[in-house]
């Protein structure tokens, strides 16, 4: 495959990296810097920060992460199928229907168990 096809993507990535670097550093380089303890304290919406910054996260974040990966992979399987969907006809629909059905069982289980709730 011709590498030139990826030139726009490469340009986008380079632009994003360079722009991020400039934006995040330009005020440090050119701005005045007279730090006080109040200024360097972590911003906590006007409240006094309590405890350490790095504490353990609840496990439900991890559950959301795992479920996100699983549906992410499902989408990955959908993508090449969707590209040739019209050529495959009814057979392709049936095969993907079974795939989707089995995954929907998992989704229903997840829903009924309340894994999608945030309590």
């Amino acid at each position, binding site marked *: 495959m011709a*590498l030139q096809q990826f030139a726009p993507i490469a340009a986008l990535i380079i632009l994003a990296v360079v722009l991020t670097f400039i934006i995040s550093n330009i005020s440090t380089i050119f701005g005045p810097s007279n730090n006080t303890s109040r200024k360097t304290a972590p911003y906590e919406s006007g409240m006094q920060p309590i405890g350490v910054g*790095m504490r*353990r996260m609840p496990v439900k974040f991890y*559950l959301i992460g795992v479920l996100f990966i699983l549906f992410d992979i*499902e*989408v990955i399987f959908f993508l*090449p199928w969707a590209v040739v969907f019209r050529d495959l006809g009814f057979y392709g629909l049936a095969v993907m229907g079974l795939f989707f059905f089995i995954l929907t069982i998992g989704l229903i289980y997840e829903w009924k168990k309340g894994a999608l709730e945030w309590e």
Partner: protein
Amino acid sequence: MTFNELSWEALAFGAFTILTLGGALGVVFNRNLVRGAVWLVVSLFGVAGFFVLLSAPFLAAVQVLVYIGAIGILFTFAVMLTRSMTNLSERFNKQAWLSALAAVTLFLLILLAVIAPIFGEIAAPSSEVVATTEDLGVALVSGDKFVLPFEVASLLLTAAMIGAIVIAREED
């Protein structure tokens, strides 16, 4: 293929090699595991670039979506779930030598597998036909190719989903 294109490819290969190896070194030498996870993302991005160079743009997209997008986040969560893993003070324990031995052995074996074919009869370059996303879609559902693994994959995903819910929501 012109020389110009070839040199661009070599340049990109070098850049992706630096990203992959540099990111991996960042993972190994960083004491803060959260920063290590960010370095891992850099390394995985380099691998995505290799997929582009290997004429597998779909896999490159999958690499970015699944590995950088999902696995990277999951690694960060896993680190933040674990107590005091963000500031690791004990770096060496009694398993260090054993794991170093295992890692070096594995590396040498992989290196052997990569280098060995070069000294043998050099295989003819594979055909110019490049597998596209369309080919992948057809192969996934065609009866004489991957339709069974494809359906089993959905079972595997469902099992993983149920397992994650059962383990993470043990308390209720």
